């Protein structure tokens, strides 16, 4: 899998490069600024890009802007954005084009390399991956709303994991229940939230996020 990596701190960049290559990814470009990132995204069209939000020259949200611009020029280009902190505002901007194939994670998630590489593969496959912290903030906002209060505790757990972008099998594994039970829960959640049911994992995640983001 061809990966473009954008991270300005040398230590983190080389660490991530080593980690990715150890897991069989092919890092075709590792850049340290937004201009190079955009060039790499448009010229190389990688299978997935892993981008730090804060990059030179302004050290603000250059990486995020470059990623969004890259996706504008190459629609559906898979991008996984990493950051020291997560903001719902940025999550919204990434999700705005409704094209999927985006991820937004705290840098700490890299510590758990298996989950991290799963997330990379999910994004590369067109999926959506959101950091649990983003979902937790979304849920605090919605927890007083009437449709959400009708969900059972188990359904809430399934909704959280679904919003983070996990597949049915991953949710089943995490909650120690069968995949069939997850399917039943998700049908019930969609009915209670008045969402159109969908068999497609990606579309389901986007529907849940759109609902929570209202």
């Amino acid at each position, binding site marked *: 899998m061809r990966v473009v990596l954008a991270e300005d701190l040398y230590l983190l960049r080389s660490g991530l490069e080593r980690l990715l290559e150890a897991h069989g990814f092919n890092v075709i470009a590792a850049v340290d600024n937004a201009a190079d990132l955009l060039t790499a995204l448009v010229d190389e069209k990688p299978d997935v890009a892993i981008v730090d939000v804060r990059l030179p020259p*302004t050290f603000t949200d250059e990486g995020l*802007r470059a990623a969004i611009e890259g996706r504008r020029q190459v629609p559906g280009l898979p991008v996984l954005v990493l950051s020291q902190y997560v*903001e*719902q*505002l940025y999550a919204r901007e990434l999700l705005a084009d409704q094209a999927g194939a985006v991820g937004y994670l705290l*840098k*700490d998630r890299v*510590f758990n390399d298996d989950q991290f590489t799963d997330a990379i593969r999910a994004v590369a496959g067109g999926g959506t991956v959101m950091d649990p912290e983003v979902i937790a*903030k979304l849920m605090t906002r919605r927890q007083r709303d009437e449709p959400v209060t009708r969900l059972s505790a188990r359904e809430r757990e399934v909704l959280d994991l679904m919003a983070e972008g996990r597949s049915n099998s991953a949710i089943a594994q995490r909650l120690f229940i069968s995949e069939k039970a997850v399917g039943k829960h998700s049908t019930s959640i969609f009915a209670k939230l008045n969402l159109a049911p969908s068999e497609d994992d990606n579309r389901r995640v986007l529907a849940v996020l759109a609902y929570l983001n209202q």
Partner: protein
Amino acid sequence: MSGMAFLGLLVVFTIFVLVAQRVVLRLWRRMREQGAGALAIRLHRPRDIRWGAALLPVTIGFLVLAGTYGITNVDGTGSGNLFSAKSIPGDLFYTLLVLAAVTLYTLVQPRRAGYLAAAGLAGIGAWVLFQALVFPHYAYDYEWYGWLRDQLYFPELVLVAAACLTGGFFLTRRTIVADVRARRSGLTAQVERLARTRADAVDSAAAELRRLERDLHDGAQARLVALGINLRTAEKLIEVSPTAAAALVADCRNTATLALSELRDLVRGIYPPVLADRGLGDAIRALALDCPVLTLTDIQLPGRPPAPVESAVYFAVAEALSNAAKHAEAKTILIRATHERGMLRVQIDDDGVGGADPASGTGLAGMEQRLGAFDGILAVSSPAGGPTIVVIEVPCALSSLKTSTS
């Protein structure tokens, strides 16, 4: 037209041009700052106009005097002075022109007109006194002293001079002296306020640094120490008991995650990253999104305030939002932010139960102190039963936004 009449016209015309230039310049500057609103007529305070209006009678007095004494008499017949055009209508024309210019100036610059009136009155008094004292004995010998000299005797002249001088003195006290005093006491008050707010700012900055030091010491720093110890132990265990070592290393990873999350919270408290990245507008939008209560925003900020102002206003808004969510049981919050006439204004309305008292809680009072350092204010209206309205105002200029918005 005589040379003197031409000179008079030139003087009057020059005054006109200068006044008109000032008016146009000022209007243009105001329009650049405030847009079309600048065209609305701005009325001066009646008190200012009152003293300024004294310029009109003083000018008339000066004209009479000039005509009477023939200040610039050239041909000895009294017909060639400064304001004469050798005919009654010509005289009238220039006189009216001067009076119109004086009236215009009084309306545009009433305070300055007041100063001029005071100086003019005193000048007339001094001139009459000078005439009375220096030339009393030649009163009937020289024609060019004019009509007034022929009519009045020494005591009357001194009386007129004394009246003018008293009036000038009185006007000076009411205009120039009063303004200088007001300015001085305004400056004194401002110095006192600045000294107080600076002390507040230094105090709160010091308290903030102590809190940071403690948080770092007890949090991230302690975790890093634990991390080092555990890694060293794992290093020793790796040969003897690989399973125990692996467990210890996994523990280290957890500790690193915790340390990171603590540092993140700490950084958020010092200078929120989204504020650094996007500025006040988006930072307020991010706060609204994170707020557990439904929060709507209407933000009209064409640029970024200076960084310290941005951060003070951000934390004040954050405090107001958390109050509304925690104590007011609000269902909806509305945040409006504007920048008009050099004033940044943020208003936070909620539909909660009200009854918030900025004096009782330390939160809002602290924010008020912090805003005070920038001459800003924080006002709270929160009657029991609601609604609560919090207004933050800080005078500041906006710098233009970065151009790379996508």
